[in-house]
């Protein structure tokens, strides 16, 4: 394909939304004002693991300017949702499983009244042992995050070749445990939205989201209504990076709008977002890599432990994807990887840009460099020697048969270094 065949594709035309963002005319969810609109607020647990012994909303309900206060009892449909598995409570029932768990909802005439009403809700908790450590969570007899299920969410396996034989061929072996931390998406726009009932009786939600259709499905389930009675519109959204993949404000907005039959708005503060919304999985990765003295990778073994927090969200997939990418973009004939996603009472961890592969790369790239150093081979050269190419199979045995660009990316960087005295000086051994 010749680039000149194209008139518009391949051209750096200005983004279609650039002007509205620069001029400030783009209408984010927070900018939507509707007449008669109420302000919603969520009471978060504040404690990571506890039984709710008493929940008294009577004084909050009695306050002037409060349109409604909702608890799990007021949920008309199924009080659970989730993209892959419905284990996420719309409102906490008998217990809370992380500090960000929603316990009650308020809609009021002003934000101030809503905040006062939240303070007026009385909750008595009986604290439970906090499941915070991945390995303790997996130990026999561990306290459970969900009483009816063990803390192991999913164990996924990758098996290729024979690692005993593979390691027998190895002249050098490196073994290490890497731990990655919990981080937040920190989009400029926090989670926000507005819901109302339109003139046809349809529930309309305009929110910052990544998939209105998935939100619609989950909202309909919690409300006990048909999907064609729910309209979810993505408002102009100020970043998401995976953090708005799971439901954020949509289910709560739906509950409040249906209960009050009035427009309701929910905008999270940064603090609420940091405490209650999804994060990048902290993942612990142990791995052992072997290579021959010629610089060929011959075996890899790994164990991946991902902390998904109190609800699965997309966590099981994140950790599984981490495991099957732990080989990196290299040909390794023998490998064995076990990945475990685990419930804890820590933050709710789900999708974030890179989806487990960000964490995998920290481990595989560190291991690759350590092997290269032991073998006395330049790290870029070592990658070129082992990079996947057409005809080779990756960790899942999938044959690379199209669009295999790893060697070209390495080759470009090699050329950059060779032509740049500053870089070449730091990598004298690169030929």
């Amino acid at each position, binding site marked *: *394909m010749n680039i000149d065949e194209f*008139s518009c*594709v391949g*051209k*750096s*035309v200005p*983004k*279609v939304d650039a002007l509205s963002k620069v001029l400030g005319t783009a209408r984010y969810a927070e900018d939507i004002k509707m007449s008669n609109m109420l302000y919603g607020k969520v009471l978060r647990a504040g404690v990571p693991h506890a039984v709710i012994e008493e929940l008294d909303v009577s004084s909050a309900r009695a306050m002037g300017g409060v349109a409604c206060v909702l608890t799990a009892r007021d949920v008309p449909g199924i009080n659970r949702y989730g993209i892959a598995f419905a284990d996420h409570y719309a409102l906490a029932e008998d217990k809370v499983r992380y500090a960000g768990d929603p316990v009650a909802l308020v809609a009021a005439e002003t934000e101030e009244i809503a905040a006062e009403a939240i303070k007026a809700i009385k909750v008595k908790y009986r604290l439970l042992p906090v499941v*915070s450590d991945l390995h303790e969570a997996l130990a026999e007899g561990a306290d459970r995050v969900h009483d009816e299920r063990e803390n192991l969410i999913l164990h996924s396996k990758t*098996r290729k070749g024979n690692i005993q034989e593979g390691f027998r061929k190895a002249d050098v072996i490196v073994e290490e445990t*890497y*731990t990655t*931390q*919990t981080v*937040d998406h*920190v989009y400029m726009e926090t989670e926000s939205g507005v819901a109302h009932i339109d003139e046809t009786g*349809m529930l309309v939600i305009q929110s910052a989201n*990544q*998939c*209105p259709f*998935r939100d619609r499905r989950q909202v309909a389930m919690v409300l006990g209504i048909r999907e064609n009675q729910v*309209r*979810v*519109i*993505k408002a102009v*959204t*100020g*970043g*998401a990076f995976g953090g708005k993949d799971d439901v954020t404000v949509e289910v709560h907005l739906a509950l409040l709008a249906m209960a009050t039959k009035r427009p309701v708005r929910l905008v999270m503060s940064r*603090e609420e977002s*940091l*405490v209650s919304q999804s*994060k990048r999985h902290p993942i612990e990765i142990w791995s052992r890599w072997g290579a021959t003295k010629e610089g060929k990778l011959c075996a890899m073994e790994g164990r991946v432990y991902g902390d998904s927090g109190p609800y699965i969200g997309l966590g099981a*997939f994140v950790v599984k994807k981490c495991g*099957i990418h732990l080989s990196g*973009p290299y040909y390794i004939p023998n490998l064995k990887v076990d990945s475990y996603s685990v419930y804890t009472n*820590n933050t709710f961890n789900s999708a974030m840009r890179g*989806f487990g592969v*960000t964490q995998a*790369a920290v481990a595989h*790239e*560190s291991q690759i*460099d350590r092997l290269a150093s032991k073998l006395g081979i330049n790290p870029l050269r070592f*990658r070129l020697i082992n*990079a996947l190419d057409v005809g080779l199979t*990756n960790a899942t*045995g*999938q044959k*690379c048969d*199209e*669009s295999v*660009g*790893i060697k*070209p*990316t390495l080759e*470009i*960087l090699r050329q*950059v270094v060779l032509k740049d005295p*500053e870089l070449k000086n*730091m990598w004298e051994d690169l030929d």
Partner: protein
Amino acid sequence: MKKRGIGIGSMFYGIGYGFSRQDIGAATVEICEDGSVIVRSGEVDYGQGSDTIFCQIIAEELGVDYAEIKLITADTLTTPNAGPTSASRVTYVTGKAMMKAATEVRETMREVAEEKLGMQDLMFANGQVFSMSHPEKNISFARLAKATHLAGRSVVATAWQDITTKDVDPETGQGDAYSTYAWASQIAVVEVDTETGKIEVLRVVAAHDVGKAINPKNVEAQIEGGVATGLGYALEEQILINKGIVQNTTLSEYMVPTSMDVPVIESHIVEVPALEGPYGAKGVGEPALIPTAPAILNAIANAVGVRVTALPANLENLHRLIREQENNNKDKS
């Protein structure tokens, strides 16, 4: 003392969901009587630029100006479900649906034009439809749109693209996990202050295989944003949790990189076409970030000889590791 180091990070990334998860893209293209174009798709642009890419693809296929296309997205009542914006899938899957829908409408219009002009070798470009051998035989896209409407032909097409892949085997993890893969490598140059542990990333050189860059500037923007995120991940960002309770709940306590922290970023676009992607394109959103932290960690090791195995490589951690290394060296000597 300040020491400089160079490091590299590489990655591969399966585009789309895998694991038998539904992975579909969709778009509807409609031509108005005056030749203006309305496109509807459930796909979400949350800032990454897919709306622009879609307009470019439609413009390419219909030979009209991309700025004149009206795009309506991400509304469950008025747009077809195109799945979420995630997994670096949007250009690859919904971009292809765009291409298919536009092609279908264009081919209907071509039939009408062939009849009108009596020519077969028609090209759609610059808002015109003309014979390549006899350019004087032509009709404007607007007039052809009107003619297509008058002929009672369909001016609406909805296209669907499915890249769902079967889950890997539960016991062996073997299988064709993803429809295609993105590949990338980045080099980072860092300077480490051995007294304080302070790290400055001086330069990042990135090379990304995106299949085909529909909008090269936008690809660069993705890479630059990804590098900034990767830098924060490597060096400073961390939600501190004590027995389930988040300790840093404001952005004065949870540190993200600022423009002062982001180095010079040099992007190189590699184009090894993906068979199922529009014009060979695949995703770059997530790959943009993935190699950055490893490249920085490897550059730190190159600079001062210590390997950070627990992220982030912040001031405290690096300072401690450098002191430990010094003490070890003293013990040996």
